[in-house]
């Protein structure tokens, strides 16, 4: 039974890692189009390694915007990884120096895969398989996208911009559609989070709407203490 859930965690991790990793082409292309050099583009994927923040900085460079504000916006987007880290610290049971390499893997996709596993052992497997697969694919395709920008004029032509939201939906789906009490708690959180983020979009800088969604969680916890 345990090997079954672990191999299903491996499958999830490889699937997410490769599918989302391929959209590194989109980042590589967008960043070079924006005016970043190939080296700057690759350094971002290697060391920042959190898609939304990377796209945010490239967007500001493209718009000729203020770089300090651009960097601040990118960091604001990265704050949610701290919240994921809080969650994963308990789940992964990582201590001491091992946190230094593992921290680089604390992002949307790895958290989502780890979270959707039925037990801690497969959560760890899911996290590491997603991390390694996504890291390798994302960096390889960033380089390809950056080098081949002239040939890939617009990645949106391939529908790659729909892959991100579809990934998160596919991951949340089983947790939201059940008839159990947990699903009944999670549905209003998910719907509320999405609604708050959309409502805040016109009034707040990029990155803030997604963070504001966490307020919904506070509201639910305060109403239904456990």
């Amino acid at each position, binding site marked *: 039974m345990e090997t079954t859930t672990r191999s299903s965690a491996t499958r999830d991790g490889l*699937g997410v890692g490769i599918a989302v990793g391929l959209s590194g082409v989109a980042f590589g292309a967008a960043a070079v189009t924006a005016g970043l050099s190939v080296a700057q583009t690759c350094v971002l994927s290697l060391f920042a*390694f959190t898609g939304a923040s990377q796209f945010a900085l490239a967007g500001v460079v493209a718009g000729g915007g203020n*770089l300090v504000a651009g960097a601040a916006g990118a960091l604001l987007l990265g704050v949610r990884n701290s919240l994921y880290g809080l969650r994963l610290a308990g789940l992964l049971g990582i201590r001491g120096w091992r946190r230094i390499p593992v921290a*680089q893997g604390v992002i949307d996709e790895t958290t989502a895969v780890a979270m959707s596993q039925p037990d801690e052992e497969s959560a760890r497997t899911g996290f590491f398989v997603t991390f390694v697969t996504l890291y390798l694919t994302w960096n390889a395709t960033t380089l390809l996208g950056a080098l081949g920008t002239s040939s890939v004029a617009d990645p949106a032509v391939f*529908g790659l911009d729909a892959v*991100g939201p579809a990934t998160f*939906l596919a991951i949340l789906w089983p947790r939201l559609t059940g008839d159990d009490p947990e699903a009944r708690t999670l549905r209003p959180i998910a719907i509320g989070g999405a609604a708050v983020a959309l409502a805040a979009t016109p*009034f707040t800088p990029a990155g803030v709407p997604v963070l504001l969604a966490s307020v919904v*969680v506070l509201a639910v916890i305060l109403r239904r203490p456990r």
Partner: protein
Amino acid sequence: MSATWWAVVAVCAGCYALKLAGLSAPRRILDHPGVQRFAALVPVALLAALIAVQTFTHGQSLVLDWPRTAGLGAAVVALLLRAPFLVVLAAAALVTALLRLAGL
């Protein structure tokens, strides 16, 4: 070093520090049941918000991009049919790409 390089390095260092900070927060913070519950539920809210933002916004404006919205719809249909994960993602990308090709 150019200003752009400084921004790139600052974003790299900052993003890594934010990840490490969450992972290394003092264990006793997590002893509080309210914090535990918050940390367990917050990814659900953030991921749902990301779906909404990545589908229906561009910069600071709300947009309805039909091909992308239809792609997400295709993902929902695939999920209802219990399709495997990669099929769900492929359906979303394929429908979006085809509708763009059709000029929508």
